[in-house]
């Protein structure tokens, strides 16, 4: 399972990277969202998968699955949510003021 997930992560990373390399804002932002999905899975996989029971005490007492990565992912999810929210707003403000959502047209330096 771990290897399968790591390979899946690799595929997601490829897709995300390809989207990040696009010209259109929305594609890039969706790309970053996919990248963050991928890395959350990756962190989880790094702690070992299906190696124990749900990390809740009192249900059964032996061999919990690694809880630390879960806590880390939670934090990471929140942060990536915060970033994505900000990013979306920034993107549409940029679109409204600059009039384009194409990064090739948002260069600004050499076209002057």
């Amino acid at each position: 399972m771990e290897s399968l997930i790591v390979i899946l992560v690799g595929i997601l990373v490829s897709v995300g990277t390809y989207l990040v390399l696009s010209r259109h804002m929305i594609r890039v932002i969706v790309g970053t969202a996919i990248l963050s999905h991928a890395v959350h899975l990756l962190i989880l996989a790094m702690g070992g998968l299906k190696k124990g029971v749900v990390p809740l005490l009192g249900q059964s007492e032996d061999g919990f699955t690694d809880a630390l990565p879960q806590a880390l992912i939670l934090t990471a999810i929140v942060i990536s949510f915060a970033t994505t929210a900000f990013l979306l707003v920034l993107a549409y403000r940029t679109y409204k003021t600059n009039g384009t959502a194409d990064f090739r047209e948002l260069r600004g330096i050499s076209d002057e």
Partner: protein
Amino acid sequence: MKINDVILRTVVKGVVFIILTLGVYLFFSGHNAPGGGFIGGLVLGSGIVLLYITYDLETVHKKMPFDFKKVAAFGVLLATGSAIGSLYFNAPFLSQTDGYFNIPILGEKHLTTVTIFEAGVALTVIGTLVTIILSISEDE
């Protein structure tokens, strides 16, 4: 032409109640079961957002006249404040304590200071979520 939303609104009135209850439940169950301040806050926040979706900005604002930025700020203050509190007791920063307290009506209850911290988290999440959605929606 105004679109008729009667069905939606009727259902939502009930649903929001369920959602808010669930949010509070999740918030309190967090320490021993899945849930906690963050998820509780998110669920409560999405309940409020559902209201905004179903009704319109002004109507909801009349019912809930909070400045959600300040709600969020208050949440952060609560979370950090509970952490600072431990300085007063000369304990390491962020120290949490728990204990069993005998409260007159409710009987013996397990209370932890984590709850204050989590309440801060939840308030921040609600405040931030609604602030974001409202700010965008209010934009021209």
